[in-house]
């Protein structure tokens, strides 16, 4: 039995799904202990009821108008104040661009151990270990604190199940008490350019994904046609999003979504590790690429070496037949 604390990311009143998975992992890890959440971000108080329903015992809220957009210092200060109120055995963060920036910043200031993007954390030998698959998915490394005390771990997307809501579980959220002064807000977010979510990649059964190999908008249109023919969603690599061919909500991989569809068709995707981590668990993978040596072929069940602008129209043709 142990107390576990979970940092919950809230963006404009929307609860981050990975944070919820962390809450599920915390509930299991606590084994009867207290699970505390800090809901942080604009509109954080609005999601407290959901946190109680999904397993939180205590909820603190950090919703400072000056910290509506994430910057490291004020968030690190808030989290440290929260952790010091009731020191847990383990503090969990989602391995997002916020969580993986914040967790090590907090750990360094508290001089406490930290592991990022872990696959899981569990009790072992009276302490805890966090595990992570590394070295091109060939090695699983277990990390443990040198000494007793707080262990900070960020969990990657899919490391735990999202806990179901139980409406009979309720509670009262309390604002976090932390003193922040102007010097904490020296870093400022000047501009935020975030795509509206128009696709639901996580629940898609089939995803047709475009990589840099589509070459231009015309190539992308071909990919789109295949998706339409299959009733699939369109995904993309970072390169396609950076080129402006698709909005960022289509992105799969390290700074995008992690997906597990039944079928993933990679079109013109070379398969850099930053992309592979987001799609490797698809049940079936078809890869279409002109380069027979592209790394994507090593994870694909079906290897089609060829130009997608030639291959895809054929696929559409046989689908219609």
């Amino acid at each position, binding site marked *: 039995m142990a107390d576990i604390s979970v940092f919950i990311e809230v963006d404009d009143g929307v609860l981050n799904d990975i944070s919820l998975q962390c809450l599920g992992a915390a509930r299991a890890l606590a084994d009867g202990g207290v699970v505390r959440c800090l809901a942080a971000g604009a509109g954080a108080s609005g999601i407290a009821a959901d946190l109680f329903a999904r397993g939180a015992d205590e909820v603190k809220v950090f919703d400072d108008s000056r910290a509506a*957009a994430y910057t*490291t210092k004020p968030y690190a200060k808030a989290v440290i104040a929260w952790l010091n109120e009731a020191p847990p055995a383990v503090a969990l963060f989602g*391995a*997002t*661009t*916020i969580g*993986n920036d914040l967790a*090590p*910043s907090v750990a*360094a*200031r508290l001089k406490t151990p*930290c*592991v*990022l*993007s872990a696959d899981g954390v569990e009790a*072992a030998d009276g302490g805890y270990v966090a595990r992570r*698959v*590394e*070295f*091109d998915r*060939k*090695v*699983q*490394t*277990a*990390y443990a*604190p*040198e*000494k007793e005390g707080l262990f900070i771990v960020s969990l*990657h997307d899919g490391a735990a199940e999202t806990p179901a809501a139980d409406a009979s579980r309720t509670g009262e959220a309390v604002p976090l008490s932390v003193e922040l002064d102007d010097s904490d807000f*020296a*870093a400022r*977010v*000047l501009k*935020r*350019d*975030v*795509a509206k979510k128009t696709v639901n990649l996580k629940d898609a059964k*089939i995803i047709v994904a475009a990589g840099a190999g589509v070459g231009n908008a015309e190539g992308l249109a071909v990919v789109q046609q295949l998706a339409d023919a299959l009733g699939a969603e369109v995904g993309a690599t970072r390169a396609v999003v950076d080129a402006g061919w698709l909005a*960022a909500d289509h*992105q799969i991989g*390290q*700074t*995008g979504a992690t997906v597990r569809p039944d*079928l993933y068709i990679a079109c013109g995707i070379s398969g850099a*590790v*930053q992309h592979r*981590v987001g799609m490797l668990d698809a049940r*079936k993978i*078809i890869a279409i690429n002109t380069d027979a040596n592209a790394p994507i072929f*090593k994870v694909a069940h*079906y*290897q*089609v*070496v*060829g130009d997608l602008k*030639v*291959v895809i129209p*054929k696929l559409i043709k*046989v689908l219609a037949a």
Partner: protein
Amino acid sequence: MSVDTMVIVREVWDTRDLVGQVLDDTGNIKADAVGTRFEPEDLNALEMALRLKDAQGGKVTAISAGEPRGVDVLREALYRGVDAVVRVNADPLALDDQALAEAYAGAIRELGSQGLILIGTTVLDGENSLLGAHLAAALDAEQVSWVDELEEATPERAVARRAIEMGTETVEVPLPAVLSVGVALLEDDPRSPRSAKAMLKLKMKKVDIPAHEAPAIEAVTKTAGRAAVPERVIETRAVDAESEAELKSMLDEARKGD
């Protein structure tokens, strides 16, 4: 207005396209099975610093921790055009990231940097990406992670664009600040690698690399064990792109399930 930049450069395991077992019988990484390379995002950070220097001047210093013979990344940095290099006398494999960050921070303090400190944000699949955040904390400096582009740098402040889920953010920070650089910058490497002969010449060239002594710092995290992950065995099949019949049976099979 020129800004001085410090770049952390690391030699790391090369985890691309590994073949066969990478662990020895005692559960340690087999050095001959893995090999090392210049941390690719550190290379991005270095390129970012050199582009800033090309555009508006300023001094670029590359810093790396390692044994005297183990800092080829510093020679590479010199070749690419940095003004100075400093070796931190510490074994990066023997320290955890917090201890390593303290060692780097000590060198940066001694050099008196009040400008930009650049480092790569490492990828998920190989190493921990803790060092940038730990370094910022050790220096009590501002930090921005997953930086793709430096939009502006003056002696007082920097404006950086960073990648976030579903988009980008433009962040302004006062200096000194630690920017962790992501993967986006280098699509192609303009100061690209040279022939093996040129590399060897670079390695043999006598360069006086000043050393910074790092204090002994206790680690807080340890590696509790490594285990081989069972190979992800998939049945792969080459499908003839010319054959409509083969393409059709592929689609039917892939959509049907197992």
